[in-house]
Every structure is written in C-alpha cells, then in structure tokens.
C-alpha cells in the first residue's frame, strides 16, 4: 500500500494505492489515519481509486479507520471505489457503514 495526503480546504484526502492486505507487511492505513486525527483533522476522505486488491485484513483496516475517526469526533468517507472494492463492501455489508462517493470532489463537498 502507498498513500498520499492532500489538503482540500479543511478536508484531508488520503489517496491510497496498491494492495491493502495482510502479509505484505504494510497494512498501515490505521496508523496513517491516527496520525492525521492526532493533528486534529476532523474531515477525512479515503480515495480508494487506485487500490487494486484488498483482503479481510484490508477491510478490517477500513473499519478501524472508521471507528478511530469516530472516537476522535472525526468522520471518514470513501471515494472512487472500483467495482471490486465496491463488491467487497456490499458482500460484507460494510456499504451500510460508510458514506461512499463516486469522486473525491463530491466526497470533499459533502462535508
């Protein structure tokens, strides 16, 4: 997994790319998010457009991101889901947990 952090006004966009899996030794989404939360960021968009593959540990990271944000009084939204990630969220019913947007722009505006 790689990531890039962009500030769009008062919204923090974390652009993720690559594989989010256990075993590659780099499921660090949670840590990256906590870093932003501890800087006081409250509005966060995870752009998943470039995420090619995700396993149950990756889904666990998304859920942990969601709950960590909540604990900090912040909110995490998702954008740019590929069909594959969208399917995974549907199957696991995580689509009922997350607000998802077709584009990062829409997600940013939605706050």
């Amino acid at each position, binding site marked *: 997994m790689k990531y890039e952090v962009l500030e769009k006004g008062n919204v923090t966009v974390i652009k993720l790319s690559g594989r989010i899996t256990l075993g590659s030794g780099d499921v660090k989404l949670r840590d990256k998010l906590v870093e932003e939360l501890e800087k006081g960021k409250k509005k966060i968009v995870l752009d998943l457009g470039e995420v090619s593959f995700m396993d*149950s540990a990756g889904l666990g990271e998304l859920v942990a991101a969601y709950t960590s944000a909540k604990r900090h009084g912040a909110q995490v939204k998702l954008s740019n889901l590929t069909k594959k990630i969208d399917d995974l969220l549907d199957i696991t019913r995580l689509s009922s947990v997350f607000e998802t947007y077709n584009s990062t722009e829409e997600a940013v505006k939605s706050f």
Partner: protein
Amino acid sequence: MLNKVSILFQSDLSMTDCVEEFFRTAVKRWDLEDDRIDWIALSLREAVNNAIIHGNSNLFEKKVEVVMEANEKNIVFKIWDEGRGFDINSLPDPTTEENLLRPHGRGIFLISKFVDGVKFICRETGFGIELKVNLSK
C-alpha cells in the same frame, strides 16, 4: 496440465504473497475471468493467513502446507496447519449489526462467498480447510 502441487513452508506471513503469485501463474492455463481469479486468490490468502495465525499461532517453526489439485472440472486447494481446528458453527456472522464494526472475522465469510465449496478436515497432524473451485461455470 496442473495435477498436484504441494507447497510446504514455515509460519511466515510473507509466504502468503508467494503462494498467491504461484497460484496466479498456474491459473493462467484456464480461461478464468480476472475478477474470479482475484476472488479465488483472496480466498486462498485468507486460508493461508488463518493457518499461520490461528492454526500455527504464528510460531515460525510450525508448517503450513498448501496443496493445489486440478482436473477438468475443479481446482481443489487444501491448506493444512498444525493446529486443532475450530468449530465452524460457532463463528459469528460478520454482517450482523453488532459485528459490523469488528476489525476481524471476515476471512471465512469471504471464502464461503467466493469459492464453490468449503470443507474442514481434521487429521492427526493438524487441521485443514479445503476450497473447491468449479472450472466449468
């Protein structure tokens, strides 16, 4: 034609990537859709990770064996660890309201959605999960 392959390795999570790439290369001989390959690869990963983490308690010395067998109709994976297995019927459903925000517990659920048959097998030396993939659909 792939008939039977066995990969034996120690409990090291980085082996999961290696097994996945072996499978992705082997699977090229069949004309499966890319998405389907991804879901099978995901299932295989989940089973291997479980064998390492839960079956072998992350103890490096303990071994995992992945067996891939294929005929014209099916690919069958068996993932063996050195543990005692678990009671499948007691697994919580990860899609219910109270479990939805748990960071774990989606592996077996995903496997059961993505492959065409799942079996659990106990033998003297350990526990195995069998994943069956139908090649004709």
